[in-house]
């Protein structure tokens, strides 16, 4: 399981984010990207020493400043479902293209080589193909 898939799954869940400078941000994850940049809503920021607090309606955190994210335990079980659904989709596609492929491959004669070119010309007279 990839950490960023887990993070994507944690969207709309509450989480705690500690930055490298020691500040922590508590809020609900709105969105994230492949660089771990994140959008939080209803945020409470706590200073490094835990003695000062700031509330803000939303904030954007650059991924590279994050030390770690603490997310609810149940999120990890939701990732499994998502990947299972994705794999099922991939399997179907694979089966379909395999069924179609052998005939087409044979007719076009594969890549390069004399026989291949001849086969391609005969069966596919479109000038664009050359």
């Amino acid at each position, binding site marked *: *399981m*990839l*950490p*960023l898939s*887990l*993070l994507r799954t944690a969207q709309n869940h509450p989480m705690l984010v500690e930055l*490298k400078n020691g500040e922590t941000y508590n809020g609900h994850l709105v969105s994230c990207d492949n660089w*771990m940049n994140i959008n939080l809503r209803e945020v409470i920021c706590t200073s490094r020493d835990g003695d000062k607090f700031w509330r803000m309606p939303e904030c954007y955190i650059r*991924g*590279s400043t*994050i*030390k*770690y*994210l*603490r*997310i*609810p*335990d149940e*999120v*990890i079980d939701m990732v499994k479902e998502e990947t299972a659904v994705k794999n099922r989709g991939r399997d179907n596609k694979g089966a379909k293209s395999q069924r179609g492929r052998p005939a087409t491959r044979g007719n076009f004669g594969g890549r390069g080589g004399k026989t291949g070119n001849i086969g391609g010309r005969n069966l596919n007279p479109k000038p664009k193909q050359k």
Partner: protein
Amino acid sequence: MSTGLDVFVNHTVSIITSDGRNFIGTLKGFDQTINIILDESHERVYSTTTGVEQVMLGLHIIRGDNVAIIGLIDEELDNRLNLANIKAEPLNSVVH
């Protein structure tokens, strides 16, 4: 090519971060930047006066930038430790 970390997946690992903290938990996944998913994790806080304090934390994503060491834990040996009797100086953070 394997990074060598895949053999640790679903095992208990100890992670020392560059700020000198020690996290223990089950490695559930990682990526090419060594971002890490740590499940059922706790932090061990070392001190010279009282024994090791364990802070339960739960599910974590640790960003690869902060990971210094990942070690496989021998669970049987680890269970035999009496952490309350272990006193140690806390680690300093990494000096860049």
